[in-house]
């Protein structure tokens, strides 16, 4: 994907900032806000994929962020914004073991490890009742001080998404981004050319984990109730994966675009009309990606663009 004119992006961001001001229906604000959140999660997953690492366990970071922010703001009395920031750091920390593991494993074995790791995190949250409240979860999580809730959450989620995209776009232009791309494309050759992959893989995991955890924290403060199966559930590992790969895992705008398309299709089109089939878009996207469209929508765009 070639550089999208900055002006167009800025215009889009401004346009998206308008709906709440014009008095959109709160339900649609809620849906869009959730859409921004999923787009952020897909972006985070895509960042790791850009560095050539495939994760089947992003739920670990989402849940870690949710619990961290909830516990810090609720039990430790931290200000919610502070707790949110700390949650990001917790997410990075939780991602470190996997980032270190990427030194030894790659491809399918690493994916399996992340899968098992997410399950470990879920079980720890489930069984460490003293800390996490176990299966009963945490209730009454303080919300972010945002004035009008729906509107506030809309802007926060949008803000996080835009910030994430800007940061990721920036990173991709630096030597770090080049290292990630080289590792993804052919790690062995990159090593021969003088690149040590390990620290870059670790960095990718940490960034991806931090951003995902931030999403988890936002979720916790918006919904105000979390439990292990909710925030450590496998859906949270699968959906960002499907969304990102559907949009085009290695592109910048592919993952958020894929996320928005699939989520809005599911929530706005199917849920009201055919609720039993509301998971269909994800299932179809998955089948499409695996069997037909390995590069997702971005791949189609590129074929149209030419080589």
């Amino acid at each position, binding site marked *: 994907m070639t550089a999208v004119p900055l002006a167009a992006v800025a215009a889009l961001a401004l346009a998206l900032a308008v709906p709440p001001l014009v008095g959109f229906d709160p339900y649609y604000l809620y849906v869009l806000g959730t859409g921004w959140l999923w787009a952020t999660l897909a972006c985070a997953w895509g960042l790791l994929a850009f560095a050539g690492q495939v994760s*089947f366990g992003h739920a670990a970071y989402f849940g870690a962020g949710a619990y961290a922010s909830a516990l810090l703001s609720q039990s430790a009395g931290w200000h919610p914004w502070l707790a949110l920031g700390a949650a990001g750091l917790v997410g990075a920390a939780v991602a470190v073991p996997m980032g270190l593991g990427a030194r030894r494993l*790659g491809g*399918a074995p690493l994916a399996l490890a992340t899968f*098992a790791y997410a*399950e470990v995190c879920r079980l720890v949250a489930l069984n460490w009742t003293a800390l996490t409240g176990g299966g009963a979860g945490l209730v009454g999580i303080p919300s972010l001080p945002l004035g009008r809730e729906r509107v506030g959450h809309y802007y926060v989620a949008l803000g996080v998404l835009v910030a994430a995209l800007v940061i990721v776009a920036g990173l991709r232009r630096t030597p770090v981004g080049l290292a990630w791309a080289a590792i993804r494309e052919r790690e062995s050759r990159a090593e021969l050319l003088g690149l040590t992959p390990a620290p870059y893989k670790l960095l990718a995991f940490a960034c991806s984990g931090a951003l995902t955890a931030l999403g988890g924290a936002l979720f916790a403060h918006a919904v105000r109730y979390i439990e292990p199966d909710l925030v450590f559930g496998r859906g949270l590992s*699968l959906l960002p994966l499907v969304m990102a790969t559907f949009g085009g895992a290695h592109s910048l705008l592919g993952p958020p675009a894929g996320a928005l398309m699939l989520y809005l299709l599911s929530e706005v089109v199917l849920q009201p009309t055919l609720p039993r089939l509301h*998971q269909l878009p994800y*299932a179809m996207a998955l*089948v499409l990606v695996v069997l037909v469209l390995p590069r997702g929508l971005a791949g189609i765009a590129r074929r149209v663009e030419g080589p």
Partner: protein
Amino acid sequence: MSLTTLGEAVVAGLANGAFYAFLALGFVAIFSLTRALNLAHGELVLLGGYVGYAAGRAWGLPTALLVPLSAAALVPVGLVWRVLIARVREPVELNSMVLTFGLSLLLQNAMLGAWAADYRLIATGPGAVVPGLSTARAAGALVALVTILGLEIVLTRTRWGTVLRATSRDAEAAALLGVNVDRVGLATFAVAAAIAGAGGVLFATVHYLHPGGGVELTLLAITLAIVGQLPAAAGRRRQPLLGLLAAGLAVGLVEALTLAAAGPRWRELVVALSLLAVLFAAPGPAERGAAR
């Protein structure tokens, strides 16, 4: 821990272990033939259990009949899996994981929809073969041993087994030698699904069924598949399934002893952690080869 408890734990552990190896057969069969990693394995086993449970409730059939019934019922599912997985592109390991991950969630939701989140059990008669080893567990272990040993014989001593092993090693070469690779594939997936179905029923006589319980079974199968391969990696390739059995027995034993010592709460965690341990502990080149 008294000696009696220890003894009981060992017996139960070995019985469970044999059964775990049996449960993992379906996963291993699919991986050996196609290199596909079926992350929906656990859900398929549960499905077998649920089908058996439903049939038992609806028609009042004895448990012994439910086993083959469920096995047969899952064969069409296995064929569907075959069709989908055969179309997965390279790298097969990763892409099959993506596909089956999605399928596993679809299955989980389907089971949730059909049977809700309640815990269900297929009732069997009371009684124990030996103290600490219920009839149900013993039956499961027996079926497991018979099946594994039987399959081992088929694999190593029959023509069909040779065909299967050849196709696993190099499908193209086998095809050039006149093997109908498609038929081998269909048969393998059908058998794998049937075993999963049978295993599910036996599983449900001893453990509670609930839709979310598939992950643990999948993690266990993967762990056993990796550990079971180690003797093969060391050069002793002649008894592939016995390696799996040995791995199962080892895991069952460790689990039973941990259970006796520390109680049931952390059991699932131990399963997940052991997969992590196995992935990171296994010798490097095997991973690297599959990964790059």
